[in-house]
């Protein structure tokens, strides 16, 4: 096992940042800790690195209990969001720092530094100072510096958070590739679900200091176990509904309630929430009996696809439609269409509903 944390808990005053968190990362895998700010993901990373002490629980590095080890003894590579390069040192000396501290031979240091400059594609930049580099280059130096002493594990805290969108995408794809080459057990922290899905082998979704779900990106996306995961990963339409006599009703009463086409084994009466992703809603011009009828109230071109907003019974739903189909169907504003769900997640509103609503509101999924 590369990294394991067991029952990790960390409190700051009254605030519980990390609440009995346990998970394992297989040797050589790249795992994303994904969650909104304040979900405890950075604190977990800092505890693994030995920069923060847990109140309870244990950290295992390559199978050994490392909880009581100081940061210096753990041999972890750490990359910060804002690079944290040593400004008074050249790129070469930055990368060499860990090796120099370990008193490796000069020859070994020189060779290893050149090797890393090549790995992060910064040959020829060795004698520059950090201020003479772009953000993306700086982050690559930070990565090279962390990798130089061949760490047991690599920890990255929002590594692309300070970069603009284009650089971020390139660097994320490059990190994925680099990880294939180096095969070091890695955890990276992010609040960007697309980034997490794109580059990680596994995702652990965190919310309020707890792991909500851990699994492969596809599992997390297609089979979210909790409402929070479903709404946090991808853009979901959140529909509040009421279950009455086995029927799932939604929409404003004044605009005429509609029955959602929900098939569940057991439909107990009460409050519920239905989440449907924009790409899981299919629009059709041939309206049949039993179809949900909606009208198109908004069309936005988003480069690779169209985002259509439809309205039914006072509910506004976002639908994505690829270009070809959009052109073939010739959708127009105010047009009447049938709305069908190809996939959805149904959740009973249990306790803590308000808290989750609050979360969703803050993330901008609901008003």
């Amino acid at each position, binding site marked *: 096992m590369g990294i394991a944390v067991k029952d990790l808990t960390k409190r700051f005053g009254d605030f519980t940042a990390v609440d009995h968190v346990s998970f394992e990362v297989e040797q050589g895998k790249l795992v994303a800790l994904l969650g909104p700010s304040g979900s405890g993901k950075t604190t977990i990373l800092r505890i693994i*690195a*030995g*920069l923060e002490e847990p109140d309870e629980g244990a950290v295992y590095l390559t199978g050994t209990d490392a909880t009581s080890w*100081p*940061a*210096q*003894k*753990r*041999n*972890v*590579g*750490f990359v*910060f969001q*804002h690079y*944290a*390069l*040593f*400004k*008074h*040192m050249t790129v070469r000396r930055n990368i060499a*720092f*860990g090796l120099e*501290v*370990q008193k490796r031979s000069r020859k070994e240091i020189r060779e290893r530094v050149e090797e890393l400059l090549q790995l992060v594609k910064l040959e020829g930049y060795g004698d520059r100072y950090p201020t003479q580099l772009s953000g993306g280059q700086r982050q690559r130096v*930070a990565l090279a*510096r*962390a990798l130089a*002493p061949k760490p047991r594990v690599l920890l990255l805290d929002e590594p692309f958070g300070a970069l603009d969108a284009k650089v971020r995408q390139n660097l994320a794809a490059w990190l994925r590739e680099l990880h294939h080459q180096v095969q070091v057990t890695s955890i990276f922290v992010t609040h960007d679900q697309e980034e997490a899905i794109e580059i990680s082998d596994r995702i652990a979704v965190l919310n309020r200091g707890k792991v909500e779900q851990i699994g492969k990106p596809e599992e997390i996306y297609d089979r979210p176990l909790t409402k929070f995961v479903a709404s946090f990963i991808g853009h979901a339409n959140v529909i509040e509904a009421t279950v009455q006599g086995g029927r799932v009703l939604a929409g404003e009463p004044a605009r005429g309630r509609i029955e959602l086409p929900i098939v569940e084994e057991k439909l107990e009466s009460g409050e519920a929430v239905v989440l449907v992703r924009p790409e899981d809603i299919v629009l059709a011009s041939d309206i049949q009996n039993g179809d949900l009828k909606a009208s198109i109230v908004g069309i936005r071109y988003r480069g690779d696809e169209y985002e259509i907003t439809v309205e039914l019974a006072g509910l506004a739903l976002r639908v994505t439609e690829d270009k070809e189909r959009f052109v073939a169907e010739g959708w127009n504003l105010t047009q009447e269409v049938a709305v069908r769900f190809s996939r959805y997640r149904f959740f009973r509103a249990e306790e803590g509903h308000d808290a989750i609503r609050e979360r969703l509101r803050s993330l901008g999924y609901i008003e």
Partner: protein
Amino acid sequence: MEHSIAAVQVRPSAKRKSWKHGAMTAGTLGWFLILVLLPVAALLMEACQSGPIAFLRGLQGEAAAYAFWLTLWTTILAVVINTIMGVLLAILLVRYPFPGKTLFDGIVDLPFAVSPVVAGFMFIVLFGPQGVLGRWFEAGGIKIVFALPGVVLATLFVTLPFVTREVVPVLREMGREPEEVAFTLGAGRWQTFWKVTLPTIRWGLIYGITLTTARALGEFGAVLVVSGNIIKRTQTATLHIHQEFTDFHYQGAFSASVVLGGISFVLLLLTEFWKKRHKL
């Protein structure tokens, strides 16, 4: 059509602006010339008026030599002690939360706010023969006020905030992360301080040391009160200049002033030169 109207309107106002700009530059520079360069020139001319022989004769005498020697050692002591303590204090203020931190943050500046003469009297009250601590020291045979320890203490007091005030902002800007990275790379606390923290804050530190040195060289009021101004015992360079002046030995006062002022000026130049060389 609209374009030409706009152009016609812009030109005279632009001209007026550049005229105003020029006047402001000239005025500001002139003001500083009068305030800084004129007095310096006057002193230099006065000191050298009777020729180089007279200038050197003004510096003759054991009293002058002793005064400069005392100032030199007091300054070295003040700089060494206040550099170490100042950096420690800055680290404490930036990195570690402790009760009463905000209050303490203000107290650090107290030596700036209090008149040096008042500061001197505080030491007299505390360490004088009748003072709370003075009595105790006196019993042990250690004289503080009207003796060398008093001179050093007074200088330490007035130069206390410089290093801390210069280092705090650079330390804050640096953040914890470079140090934390060093820890994860295997560097211990001491190693991290020497290899990462100190080089990163060095410019603030050098500037703080320059200011401390200049102030220690030039301190007058606090030292005057505490030292008792005993010739060849507790008389520093500034006290010596003052003494010469009140004794109507103008040449002595002017020569010593030029030397003392010159040392400060050279120090300032050295710092600037260093900065330039490191492209800062």
